[in-house]
């Protein structure tokens, strides 16, 4: 069955089982590997993408859910890595191995869109679904605050 949606500004039609998690549809069928697998059970946030602007864990979201909606992955955040969150992430050298950072950035972007100047508590609440095994949390907090400051 073909599922049609907008992926990073482009309309795509993916021939997949509607029950296939969007994560695998994006990675294995559409070929966008920036969205990562970390747990497959909505426990780690590596797979976060935006569906109609909302951060969603694509590992537990059936591909069918995306039909007719707008899906943004890390690759679609900006054409050249110039989104303020991406820039702040580089300025503070947040990433260690980098594997979790697609999900971290997508969650942070959604948080900042909702709350442009979040408190530490808001950050903790919004970002606690994203595990970083390398332990970059304190830099992520700083980077989110930096985006807020730079934008204000």
């Amino acid at each position, binding site marked *: 069955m073909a599922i049609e949606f907008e992926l990073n500004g482009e309309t795509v039609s993916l021939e997949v089982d509607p029950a296939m998690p969007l994560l695998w549809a994006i990675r294995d069928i559409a070929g966008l590997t920036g969205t990562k697998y970390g747990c497959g059970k909505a426990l780690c946030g590596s797979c976060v993408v935006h569906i109609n602007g909302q951060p969603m864990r694509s590992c537990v979201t059936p591909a069918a859910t995306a039909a007719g909606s707008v899906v943004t992955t890390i690759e679609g955040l900006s054409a050249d890595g110039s989104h303020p969150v991406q820039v702040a992430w*580089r300025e503070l050298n947040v990433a260690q*191995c*980098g594997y979790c950072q697609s999900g971290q950035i997508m969650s942070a972007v959604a948080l900042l869109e909702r709350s442009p100047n979040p408190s530490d508590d808001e950050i903790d609440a919004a970002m606690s679904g994203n595990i970083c095994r390398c332990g970059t949390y304190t830099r992520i907090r700083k980077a989110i605050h930096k985006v807020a400051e730079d934008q204000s």
Partner: protein
Amino acid sequence: MSELRKISRREFMKRTGQAGGGLVFALSFASACQPEEQAVGPAAKASASVAPNVYVNMRNDGIVEIYCHRSEMGQGIRTSLPQVIADELEADWDKIKVIQAIGHEKYGDQNTDGSTSIRQHFDLLRNAGATARDMMIAAAASVWGVPAEECVAREHAVHHEASGQSAGFGDLVDTAIGMPQPEKADFKDRKDYRYIGKPMDTIDGMAFTTGGAMYGTDTVLPNMLYASIERCPAFGGKVVSFDDTAARAVAGVTDVIRMPDPTAPLVFNVLGGVAVLADNTWSAESGRKALQIEWDQGANAEHQSDTYKEALVASASAPGTTVLNRGDADIATDSEFEAVYYAPYLSQAPMEPPAATARVNEDGTCEVWACTQDPQTARDVVAGTLGLEKEQVTINVTLLGGGFGRKSKPDFIAEAAWLARETGRPVKVTWTREDDIRHGYLHSVSAQYFKAGMDADGKTASWLQRTSFPSIASTFAPGVTGPAGFELDLGLLDSPWHVPNMRIETCDAVAHARIGWLRSVCNVFHAFGACSFVDELAHVKGMDPKDHLLEIIGPARKIDPKDDGGEYTNYAQDLEKHPVDTGRLAAVAEKVAEMAGWGRELPEGRGLGIAVHRSFLSYTGAVAEVSVDENGKLVVHEMWTCIDAGTVVNPDRVVSQMEGAGIFGMSIALHGELTARNGAIVEGNFDAYPVVRMSEAPEAIHCHIMESDAPPGGVGEPGVPPVAPAIVNAYFAASGKRIRELPLRNAGLT
């Protein structure tokens, strides 16, 4: 909306095999799965190049290619390794291109393990840069007809001051071709370093923030199959029979194949089981769930964590084999204090699970793309699995989404290679998180016994320490019954305490799981035990824990465990060059205490705890500030860390490793525990095997790097060992309660 693109699995695969054009995203990523090409740096057009050594290739368009032969797993080696080479080479940072090397003996040691990348390669890398520099100088001197000694290299060019001539590196390449490769060259003076010691930005920063970074999970090859493997719940068990009817009925499943049975010792061989192959990951996993398998659970089917714990504690509580002896630890003393500490099995759980892709070519050669910490061993293991010569195997190293020791074991790579040959198609094997946590190489469970004797004036006069844990050696050789070999180096034989009578013993523990190493290995539990016990002694003696720590470290001196019969190998380094220096350990203790404002007034229910440890030739310390509320919730508010790693290359990456070690150590202290039941690991994912999340992360993790011109020590691992005991000691300071078993959540504290 823009033009509609129809993407079917078949079309995607077809397109990924093409050389250009087509689907926007698929192609750029397919080409990027050649990690030799996973290069960072300017694109350029060179018609010729010269390689002064295997690490450097000078191109005539002025670009310098630097081969990173160590694996990148978050420690920043793809940045710091080029820093060293470029510095000696006098290359401009924006004219270097970093290329990930394949696994090949020509690069020397590539096993990215033991925190060795800088500490064991610093001079080698400096020499690689310096000889390349001298080659450029020799080329310029021959062009200009002047003595090489009169020429200097600076800012990507060679200059002859007397005649005012200059030539860029690129312009000298054609002349340098065919010139002798210098083997040795003089190094720069430390004060002239341009990049070494500077916090250079991560070279992969753009890839990390745009989804372009290619990990082991991300390889896509034309015509590739995706595999998911069901393995025996109990370690070492075998398939008796299986029914794959339902699995084969899952759409997308192409094949179901029984893996070869495991043979002991397991080393890095495949673990057996049944593989389901499909044209996408989800079908492979769905097919796998539909398998019906009857297992012979094998020799470890009775393994239970609760009874094993009792056995370990009993083993550590009885005399064992003496591995170090100073004076007479049984000497009569004024008073005695003893304690037993226990720490469970752990999983490395890197964010990216093990994943590898292999292709067996028509000529029988095999090519692999994998997130491996050890590509040369991977090459040997794949060659062994397929019955090939290692020259017939190519291992391309992708980025690693974390490693922590797990990815230096290439069993998952052997699986991919074996399946690629069986199916005749490229195969990607991706472990699920459950596979990773249940079927990995576990960090040892351990029990430790300590007894100290105090003389009349309260000084520690005797120290008896016993350690019992299943050995990593059991994974590699049959008949291993307890701690062995290099494990005794890891925070045991180099005990820094200034106690006149000391005996250290190892006690038996037979392995019932595949044991492997995890970030800082046995240092984790040895530091937990020793630094907790030292803290306990402070309270027994009524002393301030920091003052007592400094007292028991004692005067600055260099320890040689051999003096007391300890067969100590000092992380494979010379004790002259890298002594066990208690003065440096004490300095770290003083510094980290000062940073934390040790001794300041704290509100009720809050406490500070301190611990220090030497591992991988570096000295680290941690102070944690914790509080416990009336519901028993423990919060780590802030952490201060200090490291003396000798000479450091990239201070920002050192700080980030210490920050990461703080969180990793917190996960060990608060949450980490694997439980065996009927030979199988119960926990499977981050719900049952929690790790620290943002909400638990301290407000800040401070790090101070000690100024030092000593040779470099390790950085990736040494930050971990002091963290758990610092937290446990802080909890005692906050609550008056002593915890001797990890993780703290078992005491209801999280």
